[in-house]
């Protein structure tokens, strides 16, 4: 299967706009679940407003949140797929820029020192583009994530040591949630990276935070920790928007990698309640959009 680059550009544009407007069904189901279990009246009213907003966004075809985020594109290339890699990166970048101009969207991207905004949602190293490979035949996926800054500003890394054990991981997650309070727009998906190098650990945390609700860590120990940590986090009473309640997090997601005998790294990245993402799948029969 040959990948048509103008189609990639179009998809990159379409995905950014779709992601900003339609919340994935697993996140909507997450709201239903929290609404059923929440016991605090203030938290119930906050959750109800969030659910109303999802409907208003769909009815008015408007964006869920004003924050257009930092644009992230995750590309997964299957087997027997042919594409010019460099041209692919440029096509995604053009699509991102076109979404910003043509919709139009607020460009939230600035130079980190001059703070100059090019009004294109692009800049050095942005959009963030990750390329990965799968064993699926003739499948090419682009996932788009507009990562909101309120949650992204609460990102943490600790290079714990082996003597601190798994207790260090657990304590760190709890303390990160306490430090974040209402700033991350809870209820959140708490992404935890465990192991790897420092950079891999942070990348794992981001991957975990942007995984669909209902997905489970592929490692059995990681999966066990996910359940334990969610219960513990929701004991804290931070609640939706930091105004108190049981619904501090939808889920805790863990992604892990092997690490060094002397290392015990843990990273936390959070996704806000507007946990937006969109996906385009290219196959021999055409392009389909989903989540």
């Amino acid at each position: 299967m040959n990948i048509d680059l103008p189609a990639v550009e179009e998809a990159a544009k379409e995905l950014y706009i779709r992601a900003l407007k339609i919340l994935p069904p697993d996140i909507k189901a997450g709201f239903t679940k929290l609404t059923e279990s929440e016991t605090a009246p203030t938290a119930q009213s906050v959750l109800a407003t969030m659910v109303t907003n999802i409907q208003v966004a769909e009815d008015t075809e408007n964006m869920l949140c004003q924050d257009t985020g930092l644009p992230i594109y995750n590309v997964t290339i299957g087997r027997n797929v042919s594409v010019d890699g460099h041209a692919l990166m440029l096509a995604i970048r053009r699509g991102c820029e076109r979404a910003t101009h043509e919709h139009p969207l607020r460009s939230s991207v600035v130079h980190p020192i001059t703070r100059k905004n090019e009004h294109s949602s692009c800049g050095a190293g942005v959009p963030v583009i990750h390329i990965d490979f799968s064993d699926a035949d003739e499948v090419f996926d682009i996932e788009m994530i507009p990562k909101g800054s309120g949650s992204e500003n609460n990102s943490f890394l600790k290079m714990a040591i082996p003597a601190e054990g798994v207790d260090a991981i657990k304590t760190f997650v709890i303390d990160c949630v306490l430090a974040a309070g209402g700033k991350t727009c809870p209820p959140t998906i708490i992404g935890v990276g465990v192991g790897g190098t420092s950079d891999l650990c942070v990348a794992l945390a981001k991957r975990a935070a942007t995984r669909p609700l209902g997905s489970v860590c592929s490692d059995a120990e990681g999966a066990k920790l996910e359940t334990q940590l969610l219960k513990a986090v929701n004991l804290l009473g931070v609640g939706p928007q930091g105004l108190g309640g049981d619904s501090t997090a939808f889920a805790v997601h863990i992604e892990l990698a092997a690490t060094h005998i002397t290392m015990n790294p843990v990273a936390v990245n959070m996704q806000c309640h507007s946990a937006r993402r969109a996906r385009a799948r290219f196959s021999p029969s055409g392009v389909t959009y989903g989540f």
Partner: protein
Amino acid sequence: MAHHELTTPVSEAQMRQLRIDDTVTLQGTLYGIRDATQIHLFDRGRTTRFDLRGHAVIHTAPNVRKVEPSAAFPAGYESICVGTTTSDRMERFTRPLMAQLGVRIIIGKGGLREDSLAAFGELGGVYLAIIGGTAALESTWIEQIEDVDLDDLNPESLWKFRIRDFGPLRVAMDSYGGSLYETVRVDAQARRAQALASLGVGVGANAEKKA
């Protein structure tokens, strides 16, 4: 837990009526500000032609479409999506906003800290919590972008919105030292030990040796 209908500008006396957990719906004018707006106003000595005395500001940077100025779009901007950003980053600007420019209401998400709370008490103001991430809903409360200043900072310009039935918003910090965020923070901190105990932290071999 009273509900208040307020039209801006407001007086100090009106602010002193508000207590945490009251709700407020605003009418009239609302100004949009953000990080860069306040950095330029308070750190770089720039000024605005707007009179913010008694007014409400919201921590925002909207999505807009540039259009030909007309009666409907006097500032040459059509509002697309107006939402609210995390307030905490702008903590140090609350006092100058109130003391120098006369602002009385700050609308935001996630709350502000001690110095803001002290400023609300000393100068007569409140923080109204909006639900972050609900911009589609919030946008339906914005009637028009009436004017804009410091527009070289776009999208972090100083925006003047005309609003209708903006709310209900929750009084989350009042002029009597009340802060819902502080109450929740202290309460959550007190539950830390319970959360860690539920995870079995401190009950392993290491902890026993330490004891």
